[in-house]
Every structure is written in structure tokens, then in C-alpha cells.
């Protein structure tokens, strides 16, 4: 297992966000937990992954996520069981979308 935390600059997500969980910890899959963090201009991501040695790819995937979505103020926690970048990006997008739902 490899664990690390990354803080990304991001546009503010806005107040109307809720905690949500997306995905399942299963081979080739991951779970993404979205919660509210402290700094509205930053998105923190805590990654725990069973695949060692891919930190540079994680950083690239997460940087693209923060660039494409206003994720500022969110605290994201990930349990990963060897998902490909495609699946990671998809789960992040789904979790981001879910975290906006039902908040109004």
C-alpha cells in the first residue's frame, strides 16, 4: 500500500456541497469520499492505493481533475485497489457531481 496527500489549487466549489461516497474498493476500482474541507481555494486529496509506484500518474490525474472541476474547499479521500487512470478520473467526476446533488 502507498499513501500520500496532495493539495491542489482549485476554484471554489461553492457552499452547497454534501459528503458523498462513490465507487467500491474492488479489484481495478476505487472509492472516492468527498467531504467539506477548510480552505475554499484548495482541494486536498488523500490517496491510499494498493498499486505502489504510480504517484506521478496520480498527481497528473488529480491535477487534471482540479483543472476541470471547481473542487476548491473539498477534502477528497480515496481507497484504491488498482484502478486505471480512466476509472479514477470517472469516479472523481461522478463523486464531484454527486456531492452537488440534493444539497439545495
Amino acid at each position, binding site marked *: *500500500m502507498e499513501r500520500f496527500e496532495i493539495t491542489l489549487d482549485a476554484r471554489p466549489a461553492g457552499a452547497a456541497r454534501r*459528503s458523498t*461516497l462513490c465507487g*467500491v*474498493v*474492488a479489484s481495478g*476500482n476505487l*472509492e472516492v*469520499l468527498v*467531504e467539506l474541507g477548510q480552505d475554499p481555494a484548495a482541494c486536498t486529496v488523500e490517496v*491510499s*492505493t*494498493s498499486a505502489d509506484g504510480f504517484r506521478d500518474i496520480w498527481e497528473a490525474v488529480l491535477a487534471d481533475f482540479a483543472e476541470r472541476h471547481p473542487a476548491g474547499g473539498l477534502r477528497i*479521500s480515496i*481507497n*484504491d*485497489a488498482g484502478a486505471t487512470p480512466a476509472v479514477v478520473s470517472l469516479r472523481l467526476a461522478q463523486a464531484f457531481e454527486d456531492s452537488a446533488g440534493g444539497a439545495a
Partner: protein
Amino acid sequence: MSAKRVSYFEASARARVAALVDPGSFTEFCPPAQRRTSPHLAQLDAPVAFDDGVVVGAATVDGKPVLIAAQEGQFNGGAVGEVHGAKIRGLLERAARERPAAVLLLVDSGGVRLHEANAGLIAISEIMRALMAAQAAGVPVFALVGGACGAFGGMGIVTRLCDEVIMSEEGRLGLSGPEVIETVKGVGEFDSRDRSLVWRVTGGKLRRGLGEATRLVDDDASAFRAAAVAALTHHRNAPADLASLKAAQAALTERRATHPDTRDGLEVWRTLGLAQPEAVPMLASDEFNRQLDALATEV
């Protein structure tokens, strides 16, 4: 296009809960944000899940209050570890106190989580005790079995303790899994790679035919919900007092005599007198239930 069917078999535990309960009625206990993860898996440096593979909470179904637990079959095969087990046990103990209309156990599990050995075994027995305590307090417990891991090992026993067992054909119920039987007794006893045979022996249709499952539905989350709603209105009670336990034992003895040396579900359909035994696996559940009920009325 018509509304898309939600496959219960494929749905995650959270998606199953969402499809079963009244919209917006679910409150989760020990939600993922509390991070009650398995200390055993962490010690083994294995991936953990924020909910330890089971979702528990309160909701309403058809307006009636229920407590609900859903195992995530994709996380370690839905296996019961210490935290996972404690969540289910706690839910059942709460049921004994709060007396909801029912407890729904969405079982999807191969049994005890091997990584957690004794803690998992103890958790299973605690679940059984709590389940019977809930029943003794007058709360019926319904098992819903339709996931890829079925209900095996300790969770197979837990399922058989329930008042109602709602299954799809894809769901499976048994004690030892097919691979275990093959490993211990040899491929001649049971070929676990013969998927067709595995489902004909452990699948929901045979379980319904033998009376272990009380309702058989198609692999459709809305069909599981409909069956749960019906069970909330009228349900069977698991044997509890001495007389009913003796009756259940007698029924099992008779079943053994009716189906001696049976190795395949097809033989059971033949013995029961279904018109086309080999056509049974492809029957939709409505038609299957109709044929089975017709037999029951004939007798």
C-alpha cells in the same frame, strides 16, 4: 425508451439500498465519513473500505419503518470482518429495542473474512444471536439474496434464520461454496467450474423449489422492492418454538426421503413433477412461481 431495469446482481450495496427504500428516507449509521475501517486489513497492508463493506441504516419502505443492512459483495467478497459484523449486529440489536416493521438484510457474502479469522467467526455468531433476539422481540427479519457472492458460509446460516428469504435465480444460497466442496471432496463430487450446475444446485430457483427461499424474483431491483413490500404486509415466521422447530426438522427429513441421492436441480424438478424440467432454468420468475404454485395446489 422504457425505464431501464436496474440489475440487482450488478448494483453496488449503496445502489441496492437506494432502489429498495422510499426515496430520501435513508439515514446511514456509521457513515463512511466516520472511517470505521478494519484494523486487521490495515495491519495486513491490504486495502480498506470506509464502510468496511457494509451499509447500515434506517429507512422507510412503502411508508413503513425498517432497519436495513447491505453487504458490498465487491469488497473482499462481502466477507464478514470484525467491524463489518459489529455493524450488522448493532443494527439487529437496535431493531430489538426500536421494533421497526422489519429488518432487511441484503446479503452478498462468501462468509467469514479469512483475514480476520476468529474475530469474523465471533462476529457471525453474534449476528445470529442478535437476529434471533430481534425475532424474539417480534421484529421479522428478511434476507434478500441476489448478488454475485450469494449467501454462503456463516451468512448462509444467517440467511436461513430469517423469516423471509427473497432471492433471484442469480442469487445463491448454501453453506460451503462450490470451490470449497470441490477442493475437499474432489471434482467428481462437484465441478465448481460447471457454472450451469453450480446455479442449478445453489441458485435461487432450487432454493425456492425446496422451500428455503420464500419468494423468487427476477434480477431487477424493483422486483426485490416489490417482494419486500409484499413481505412487509404478510410474512412467514421462521420456526421459533419447540413445536415449529420439530415440524421443520420433520419436513427436512421428509425432503431427504423425497429427493434421495439427488445431485442436480434438474432431478428435483423431475421429482416434483414439473412438466419440462430442463426448461426451468430459462423460465422467468413469474412463470416459474406459477408452475410451482400449481404443483402445490395439486398436492
